[in-house]
């Protein structure tokens, strides 16, 4: 069983970065960068599969040279090897450029399963995995909160807005996982030491044969501004002085919950 896990490096969500007033992008210099916590679940899902079955987990990331740290983190968790796609010309890539680059970087290699997060914590477009599946001509099993692989098939519980669906597809397939799928392991010291010696292959745009088809040269969108969003609006707030329960019951009645 060979698994490829796509991982993204993002600014630490514990210390959300500032916006660069000029570029309107999140400042990635001088802030802590981490493996997207959502993608830790992808790595964990891959590791659990090869622990049950034999096989290897390869992690792939596209980003600036520093993104190698996110790959190292996944290697410390137990992944076998990494691929880093990096090139200054790939800056400002959108999801489709990312999908093209990943598809090109793994050309000729075979994976039974390609695991991604459902959406990245920072970009949150959720578009990359479907675009990758389309480019590779593979079935997409998305929003998995449970994943089982056997007899050449992957079966997932697909989280929906109303509950969940049990969905299956033949391998090879692209699967996106939600945070609910597992609890990601914390790298042990031994894993961290071992990760230093694991192979990370670095590839650039010309290695991929994508000159002009990804990144700056293929820019389909340009970010011009960014501002914090307004939260949900407050409704009625009541101080509980004994009548709180009655008011709650009225609220529940109004919603026809009781």
């Amino acid at each position, binding site marked *: 069983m060979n698994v490829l896990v796509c991982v993204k490096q993002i600014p630490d969500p514990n210390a959300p970065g500032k916006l660069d007033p000029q570029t309107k992008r999140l400042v990635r210099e001088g802030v802590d960068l981490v493996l997207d916590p959502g993608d830790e679940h992808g790595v964990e899902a891959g590791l659990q599969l090869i622990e049950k079955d034999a096989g290897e987990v390869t992690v792939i990331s596209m980003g600036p040279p520093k993104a190698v740290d996110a790959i190292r983190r996944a290697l410390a968790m137990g992944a076998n090897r990494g691929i880093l796609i990096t090139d200054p010309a790939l800056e400002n890539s959108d999801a489709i450029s990312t999908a093209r680059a990943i598809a090109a970087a793994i050309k000729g290699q075979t994976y039974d399963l390609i695991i991604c997060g459902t959406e990245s914590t*920072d970009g949150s*477009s959720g578009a990359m995995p479907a*675009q990758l599946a389309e480019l590779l001509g593979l079935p997409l099993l998305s929003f998995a909160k449970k994943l089982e692989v056997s007899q050449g098939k992957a079966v997932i519980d697909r989280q*929906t807005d109303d509950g969940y669906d049990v969905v299956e597809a033949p391998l090879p397939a692209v699967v996106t996982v939600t945070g*609910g799928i*597992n609890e990601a392991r914390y790298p042990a010291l031994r894993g961290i030491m071992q990760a230093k010696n694991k192979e990370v292959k670095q590839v650039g745009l010309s290695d991929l044969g994508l000159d002009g088809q990804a990144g700056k040269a293929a820019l389909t969108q340009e970010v011009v501004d960014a501002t914090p969003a307004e939260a949900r609006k407050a409704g*009625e707030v009541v101080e*509980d002085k004994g009548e709180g329960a009655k008011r709650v019951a009225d609220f529940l009645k109004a*919603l026809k919950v009781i």
Partner: protein
Amino acid sequence: MILAFIEHVAGAPTMLSLEVLTMASRLARKMGTQLEAVAIGPKAVAAAEILSSYGVSTLHVADDQRLDDYAAAAWAHAVADLAARVNPRVIIGTASDRGGEVIAHVATRMTMPMAANCTEIVPGDPFTVTRQRWGGSLLEEAHLKGTIKLLTIAPHALAAEASPSRTQVATDTFSPALEDKDFRVRLKISLAQARVVVGGGRGVGSAEGFAALEELAGLLGGAVGCSRAVTSLGWRPHSDQVGQTGTRIAPDLYIACGISGAIQHMVGCRAAKHILAINTDPGAPIVAQADFAVIGDVQKVLAAVNAEVRRVKAGEPSRSPA
């Protein structure tokens, strides 16, 4: 022409699709063009009635029995086939668990730019969208290139608004040239989720403290969820965790008990239709985001609420002070 991709249940458009139609019809007016819709599966024909209140001139229905069950690749194939025939300038869908990936597939098939989770669209040159990043906490403005723009609209970015005047909706049923490989993903079972989720946070106090939440969930036919603080403390299993690194839920009602409302938690429940908060701190972020908030101790309030709900369900009069 603007093409709205409509999701429906047996011909009734979903709420998010009505929001998309509202956005799309405003956009069509601004662009001085007409609005058409595409919906998948033979049952979609029944949607014409409702679409007539949203300024839709033609409803395209992808007519193939195999499309009844959700299959992202097949649905996208149908939409892309249609788009190649009718040549829209914008294709717009929901950012639901389905719409987002169908539009992403279509964008890739057509090699056109896509912007996800948009909250605002300003047509013209440049074509500008405002979209959500960081799970909805950051708004980004971007210019889109390409002759066809593919957009998804963030849930509840605007309220659905039917127009008082109705249009004549022509129905065009078409049979997309689907391939077997479009149906490799097969739906086996579909299970509905609790419409009410009672979530508990650090303020619940202890693992035992969840008994009151279990009781309320039982009374309302709901399920219990929790914050990460609670799973970290070992009070509940990870499978109960709501949020960015847990499950995302969209119940009719989310009852947040002793939960502060950190952004990573809210990412998991922002799609809830209503939020009721119980918290000792009137300044907690959850209070500012709840439709209704009670300031008080979780255990005290819940004990009284459970008693009151039991009384209401039994048809007895309330005992609370008037």
